[in-house]
């Protein structure tokens, strides 16, 4: 009896120590590999045109970033995540500093100043991506620190104030509204989970919706007199009417989705990537997936993301401690928000803001940090049952 008990214990311990979420890892690697294939497919035309005939330019760069990201993921999955609690404020501070540096020493790509070059390494990073991981760690730490205080309006306000400041910085320093929205979104989702009650969130959601509707209404009636963003809204309402301006990208994306049909034109056979969807390897990559692989491929990709989110939820539910659970929820929120917003933009459900599709869209910093985040989630998962 005792021997069997010891054996069971031993077996339990072995099991505990080697718990690895294989389905999560499978989904990650599937998405990475699929993303690389799609980047190669979408970018060859553009690369050939703009990169002096190097058709695999984007593929090679993304491949390097993915390898770097896997290393980051492995590192983070072994790095004791509890340490992040101590790192949270320095991370937050670092991203604030980096964001301040962007307008000063930032590198401009395609007319947007969002990158900072790390001297000596020849790498360029997006501080906004660092801010996303920073906000996850920071919010998890804050929520734990404030605890019951969160229930007071003041405490809640403080908990919301820090990410709001970061989001504002992102918006002001990098002119990147979408990253600001994502940062706020992550923070709100984490607070939503951490605090009991639905009322204020439902209220907040409704008021945001009402405000948005009001803005759209005003812009719609102001007509074309508005500024850059208002034209985006108008183009969203009537992409055909703005086919040569802001509506062009959206309209082309819709054409791509519509022309793909159920099973698509076949991998690599997209016509829309031939200059009609500019830089198809970026934000609009999902529309090319629809065109080449059809509804079937698109929904399969969405199911993969859903599976990923579901696995993250399982990890969060079984996390050994609150901090780990909050971290995983942050990661989950980040990925879910970005996927939903990206597909919503591509299908013209919301106005066009530049949001990339995680793991698939081209972008080195993004994929590296997203993989690092998943490393944290895997790390938390490894500690399940300890």
């Amino acid at each position, binding site marked *: 009896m005792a021997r069997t008990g010891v054996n069971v214990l031993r077996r339990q311990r072995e099991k505990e120590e080697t718990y690895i979420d294989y389905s999560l890892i499978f989904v990650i690697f599937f998405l990475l590999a699929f993303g690389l294939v799609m980047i190669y497919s979408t970018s060859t035309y553009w690369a050939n045109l703009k990169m002096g005939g190097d058709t695999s330019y984007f593929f090679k760069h993304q491949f390097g970033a993915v390898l770097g990201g896997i290393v980051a993921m492995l590192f983070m999955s072994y790095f004791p995540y509890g340490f992040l609690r101590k790192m949270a404020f320095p991370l937050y501070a670092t991203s604030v500093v980096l964001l301040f540096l962007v307008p000063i020493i930032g590198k401009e790509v395609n007319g947007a100043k969002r990158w900072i070059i790390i001297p000596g390494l020849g790498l360029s990073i997006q501080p906004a991506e660092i801010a996303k991981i920073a906000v996850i760690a920071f919010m998890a730490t804050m929520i734990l620190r404030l605890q019951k205080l969160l229930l007071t309006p003041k405490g809640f306000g403080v908990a919301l104030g820090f990410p709001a400041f970061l989001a504002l910085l992102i918006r002001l320093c990098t002119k990147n509204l979408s990253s600001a929205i994502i940062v706020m979104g992550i923070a709100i989702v984490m607070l939503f989970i951490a605090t009991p009650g639905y009322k204020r969130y439902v209220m907040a959601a409704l008021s945001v919706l009402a405000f948005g509707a009001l803005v759209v209404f005003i812009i719609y009636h102001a007509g074309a007199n508005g500024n850059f963003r208002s034209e985006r809204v108008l183009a969203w309402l009537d992409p055909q009417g703005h086919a040569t301006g802001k509506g062009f990208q959206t309209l082309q994306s*819709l*054409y791509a989705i*519509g022309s793909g049909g159920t099973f698509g034109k076949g991998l690599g056979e997209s*016509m829309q990537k031939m200059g009609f969807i500019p830089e198809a390897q970026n934000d609009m990559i999902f529309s090319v997936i*629809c065109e080449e692989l059809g*509804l079937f491929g698109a*929904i399969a990709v969405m199911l993969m993301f859903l599976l990923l989110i579901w696995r993250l*939820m399982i990890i969060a539910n079984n996390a050994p401690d609150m901090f780990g*659970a909050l971290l995983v929820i942050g990661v989950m929120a980040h990925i879910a928000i970005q996927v939903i917003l990206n597909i919503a933009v591509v299908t013209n*459900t919301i106005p066009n803001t530049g949001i990339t599709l995680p793991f698939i869209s081209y972008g080195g910093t993004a994929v590296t940090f997203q993989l690092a985040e998943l490393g944290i989630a895997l790390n938390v998962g490894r500690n399940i049952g300890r």
Partner: protein
Amino acid sequence: MKTVKTKNVQKFTIGMKKKLVVLFILVLLAFAGLAAKLISITANNGKEYEKKVLSQQRYDSLTIPYKRGSILDSNETTLAWSEKVYNLILDAKVLKSDEKNVEPTLEALNKYFAGKMKENGIDMAWIQDYLEKHPDKSYYILAKRLSYDEIKDFQAFTASEESEGKIKGVYFEDDYIRRYPENTLACDVVGFASADNQGQAGLELQYNDVLSGIAGREYGYLDDDMKLERTTIPAVDGNSIVSTIDVHLQAIAEKYLKVFNEENKNQVHPGNGANNVGCIISNVNTGEILAMASYPDFDLNNPWDTSRLVGRPEFVEIEEKNSEGKTIVKREQLKDEKGNPIYVSQERVDEFNNSEDPEVVKQKLCNLKSLWRNYCVSDSYEPGSVSKPLTVAIGLESGKITGDEVYNCNGYLEVGGHKIHCHNTGGDGPVSVQRAIQKSCNVGLMCIANQIGIETFSKYQKNLGIGLRTNIDLPGEPKTETLVKRAGGQNGMTPTDLATYSFGQSFNCTMIEMITAFNSLVNGGKYYEPHVVKKILSSSGSTIKNIEPRLLKQTVSDSTSKKIIEYCNSVTEKEGTGWTAQPVGYKIGGKTGTAETADEHGVRNKREYVVSFMGYAPADKPEISIYVVVDRPNSVAQDNARFATFIVHNILTEALPYLGYPMTEEITEKDQKELDEFREKYGITSEQPKVEEKQEEEAAAASQDSEEKKEDTEENKEPAWKSFDVDPATGYYINPNTGNFVDPDTGYEMGASAFEDEGSDNAAKEATKN
């Protein structure tokens, strides 16, 4: 154990777990909503968007032009060719893709093409404006049809270091432009092509299919899997044609037509020397046309130049309903109220050029069309006395006359109740057949025709191709069938018609018909289809097809031919009507023609004449023939064949030495003086052919030559009877004219034994009795 371990650690609460599930459900709903949206886009707009995607693609993006084939003369001198030219294209999309390239590119365009672009009303400000307004347009033609010389500096600059690779969004598109290096030369024969490579007249039209190539294409298409593929099919260049026209001979002919015009213009009325002057020179033994010219001519490089209309009679198009109720457009000469023709003046041309009035534009087009007509092929007229040798040949060939007859000319003959006058109203007295030709005696000819009879005359006339198309390889040959009455039928030939037909009046024919018929009379009776193209070359210059002379039929026998030559040679003797056609140093034969004209209603005004001369050289053994027609010379007395004979004299005086014929006649000092004056006047610098020293030698050579030729012709005769039907019983050929058997080996005709001994005329006479 677990609880123990995690006691001091904050755990995920049940409330949080619930909220997490709520969150997941929200995410799930969002995903489901987006999936629904995707499905709805595909289901509702799938087909429409698919079309949009396909319509955005450029399938037919580029047509690669072909090079139209050249037209060459018999020595392969170029008469028409297509020069490669370049269109300057602006690709605003490419240029605007990098703003820093805009300025250097525009500067370069301004430097190299400012003048050319100005022609299209394009300057730098315009381009700037265009770039602003159409930054996504990829194709705009800034300048058309630049030559290589005009673009090479720009291309060198673009390729050089100096431009720093900043010249973008400008490229050249190939095109071809039709060029006629000889301008007006042989304009009627060569014709011209429109800007889109469609032949409009002459050889350009007749051989349009040969000259045209196949345009290449660079295009995209959708394969079986709806996959867009791009393919380039290169253009296939057109074939070239080698004409029988000899540019030098053509130039000689045109030169003296112009001389004629200069000497005779503005004589009676302001205008050209004649309404039309046409000249054909052909090879009697092959049917090849060596020169075909008419005046007024036009510039092939600028066929719409209305200044060439000045001095021509003005034409109007009249729409008429024919008996079947169809509307037919007739072109008629414009006349004033007194019935005098109106000639195009400079003022009228100015009106043509400046007026927008559709009536005037129509008028202008009508007159230009008449200018572009090939008089030698398209216009019919009453040939006049030139057809007298035909009548005599019919008489001889049918055996109705022997050639020894003598007729008495009182100046007229009464036929069918009409007094038909001779050219010489005083009467020529007794005339032999030869003299009837020499003096062009109408009465003599009417007597001959009377002997021949309507049936025979009509049959032989048709056999000579009068009233039939020659099928020359030039467009616009009219149907002359209705212009010549045939024997029999209600509207058949009457005795009066027969009488007038004998000297070439009251029926119409074209120049090409007449010269083709005449050629067969002087070459031993072989009727060749006339042609102006002898070879077709591929675009790389290799021969694809040789067009051989086409012998269609035997019109008269060799002996008849010899007699006709004998008679026609007398025309150019001192007392003959064609004496003035004789070039210095040569003996030629021929026949003059002075024909009355009838207007549209058949009324003859006895003031307007078509004068002509049909000649051949050398006189003893014709090799080339020449036919000159002067349509209503600008003169008080139009009925003078000298208008035509002088032209023939001039042309042959220069042309025969050019063609390498040795002089056969003694040249007196007077002749030499005349020749020297002639050569000086018309700037002939080539060496005058030697007569004295070489004469005997040449003559000997010529006679030897002619003997050889004789043998040749006898050999050539074989196919004539070998082409007869074979009698199945005997294996002998049957002569279709006589019904006699012909020995297949020797060609000896049975039942025609008297043929050689008693003279061919008797034999032929008997033959036609059958």
